[in-house]
């Protein structure tokens, strides 16, 4: 627990210099860190000593972080700029044997030795033991020798190489056997915990590898590339599987924030008649003269929302996320209906709402139960829009807002602009949310510019942009 922060290495220079460099890196990852925060952080470093790295981490986090989701980025950047040690770790924890014999890195190690250590650590289930194994693993297995030997440009430490050789998932079964858990309930809990520890181990290896690499290649470079971006800044189209899972976890909190924003806007707009009782009560402040009339809130019919989503492979992640988000927001609207299409439109409201709300299987449920691609598997916007108008045209009324989701890549087929014009003409408002970067609209088979002339098209590459669009545009 009491690693000293190593300040002995050359490079980033003085401590204030390093702090500023770290702040720069945080800004590079989209965190808003002002000068006053940096000054706070410097004060924190003055109050806390550098002797305890964990305390320093918490202290700097208190000063530099401004909202909940930023912690992961902060931790990763902190590890690069304030590493636990320099070079291979030789420190032994707790037992205090500094003769070096007990050190895990003292003797050369093979894959099997490291895996044995990992099994041991998993069986005991302690975080510090895992950290030691991660350090040893990277040291033994992660070195990349580029050019002429260690230290040369291009050399570094690879987490991927380490994990591929070590294959930590193979340790699960052995660790479970060593735990000797009783069959049944306890065993299932054990399995769950060991799996989580393996995930944690992977992260630790990642941290260790980027720490070692930072020494070879310079911190700024590593901080720029090795830190995974915050979930709200991940592009929908480029999201990996884990990122999609992470995104899904942000749906509920995001929906709650959006709901507050929408209802605040609704409140401000719905000014009605004078509320006599409250006006009189307030007039007491002015000796009975009603200077400040209080208005009643007028209850207005809530708007209806129709969501029309392209669920073909390329944009399915974006469509799925938005469907879940809109579903979570459903009490903000009087009616929400969701339609999906690839080259034919079908209603999927039931599937999205469905009692067994398992978001992971949403895409499969749509593919299995809805008729979205009767002929072939590639998207056809013209046909899909036309089938929406003919089958569900009556759904759209003067109170309906329509959100169309898709990349507008029509596979060189007829875009059928008239069908879209028809939808726009009937609805109160229509928006098109496009997960592609605006600069790519119109390239290749994209018909985005043509559609954009008819309908309000917005770029929606990240959760941040999506929540901005939803919170700002939707009528209340």
């Amino acid at each position: 627990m009491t690693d000293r922060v190593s300040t002995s290495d050359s490079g980033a220079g003085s401590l204030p210099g390093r702090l500023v460099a770290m702040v720069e890196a945080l800004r590079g990852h989209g965190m808003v860190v002002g000068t006053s925060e940096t000054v706070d952080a410097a004060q924190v470093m003055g109050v806390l000593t550098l002797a305890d790295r964990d305390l320093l981490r918490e202290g700097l986090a208190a000063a530099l972080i401004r909202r909940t989701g930023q912690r992961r980025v902060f931790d990763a950047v902190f590890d690069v700029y304030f590493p636990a040690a320099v070079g291979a770790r030789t420190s032994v924890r707790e037992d205090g044997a500094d003769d070096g014999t007990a050190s895990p890195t003292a003797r050369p190690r093979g894959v099997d030795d490291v895996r044995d250590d990992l099994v041991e650590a998993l069986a005991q289930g302690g975080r510090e033991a895992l950290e030691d194994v991660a350090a040893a693993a990277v040291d033994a297995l992660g070195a990349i020798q580029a050019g002429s030997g260690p230290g040369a440009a291009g050399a570094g430490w690879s987490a991927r190489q380490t994990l591929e050789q070590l294959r930590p998932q193979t340790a699960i079964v052995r660790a479970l056997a060593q735990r000797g858990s009783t069959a049944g309930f306890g065993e299932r809990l054990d399995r769950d915990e060991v799996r989580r520890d393996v995930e944690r181990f992977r992260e630790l290896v990642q941290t260790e590898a980027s720490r070692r690499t930072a020494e070879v290649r310079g911190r700024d470079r590593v901080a720029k590339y090795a830190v995974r971006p915050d979930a709200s800044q991940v592009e929908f189209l480029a999201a990996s599987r884990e990122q999609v899972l992470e995104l899904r976890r942000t749906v509920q909190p995001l929906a709650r924030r959006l709901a507050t924003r929408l209802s605040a806007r609704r409140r401000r707009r719905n000014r009605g008649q004078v509320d006599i009782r409250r006006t009189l009560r307030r007039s007491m402040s002015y000796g009975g003269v009603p200077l400040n009339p209080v208005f009643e809130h007028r209850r207005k019919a809530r708007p209806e929302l129709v969501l029309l989503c392209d669920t073909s492979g390329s944009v399915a992640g974006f469509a799925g996320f938005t469907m879940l988000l809109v579903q979570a927001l459903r009490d903000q609207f009087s009616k929400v209906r969701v339609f999906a299409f690839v080259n034919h439109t079908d209603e999927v409201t039931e599937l999205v709402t469905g009692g067994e709300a398992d978001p992971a299987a949403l895409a499969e449920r749509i593919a299995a139960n809805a008729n979205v691609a009767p002929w072939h598997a590639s998207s056809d916007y013209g046909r899909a829009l036309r089938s929406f108008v003919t089958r569900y045209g009556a759904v759209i009324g003067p109170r309906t807002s329509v959100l169309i989701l898709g990349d507008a890549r029509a596979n060189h087929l007829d875009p059928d602009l008239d069908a879209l014009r028809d939808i726009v003409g009937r609805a109160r408002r229509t928006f098109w949310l496009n997960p592609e970067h605006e600069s790519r609209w119109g390239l290749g088979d994209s018909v985005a510019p043509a559609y954009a002339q008819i309908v309000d098209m917005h770029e929606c590459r990240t959760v941040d942009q999506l929540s901005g669009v939803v919170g700002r545009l939707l009528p209340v």
Partner: protein
Amino acid sequence: MSERFASVEDVTDQLAAQGYLASPSVATTVFLADRLDKPLLVEGPAGVGKTELARAVAQATGAGLVRLQCYEGVDEARALYEWNHAKQLLRITSGRGETWDATRDDIFTDEFLLARPLLQAIRSEDPSTLLIDEVDKADLEIEGLLLEVLSDYAITVPELGTLTARHAPFTVLTSNATRELSEALRRRCLFLHIDFPEPDLEERIVRSRVPGVDDTLATSLVRVVNALRRIDLRKAPSVSESIDWARTLLALGAESLDEAVVDETLGVLLKHTDDVARARKHLQLDEADVRR
């Protein structure tokens, strides 16, 4: 500068004496808030002890707790101060023969000022702890009011001038993040995100709150709760639910956790029916039913 705590360990010890077991990050941030004289903005899931932290700090430092509970529509008159109009009217009518100047100077004095929580904390003779609870529930305009209080520990009453705090109160703001707080407010505070505690800390919390629970039961209870937190639930069980569950198990006289006990008491931990269903599936409680 006020120094309520000597070191980070001192914070941990003093809070523990009040029955609040602080994680290192909580202790460090409380210590810094004290040293840097900055308010503390606490965010985190419901039921991890955000409000409890303020209470524990108040008790540990022996400072009175002044609490402002925010809600939609809380205004200046509820948060800062209000003139006691009725009393002012009485004063005016009772002093018939007086000149206008005398009356005017008299009715805008302390006697007619009703101090609301923020003013109370600022004017308090003794050191105080100010808790601004669920600040995200309040309207955006209130944040503007808070800025002066939080950065200078001062309140300006137009008729009286600026009142500055005798002792800067230890200030804690809590938020459930239903709304984005403004940057200006965030910048004035140290930020603390309290998450679900590490398993061994949670175990200690459960044992200290529910003294009758033995070690093995507490351990397995915390393990089940942690397993549940890892799956996608609408409302993950928090520390207060763990404590409730421990109490329930104690009341039922359960000595160890097995499928049947967990199955019967899952309703204490989870508040939504589909959460219960998902948890049963994850822990494979259904299969156990079949086997029995």
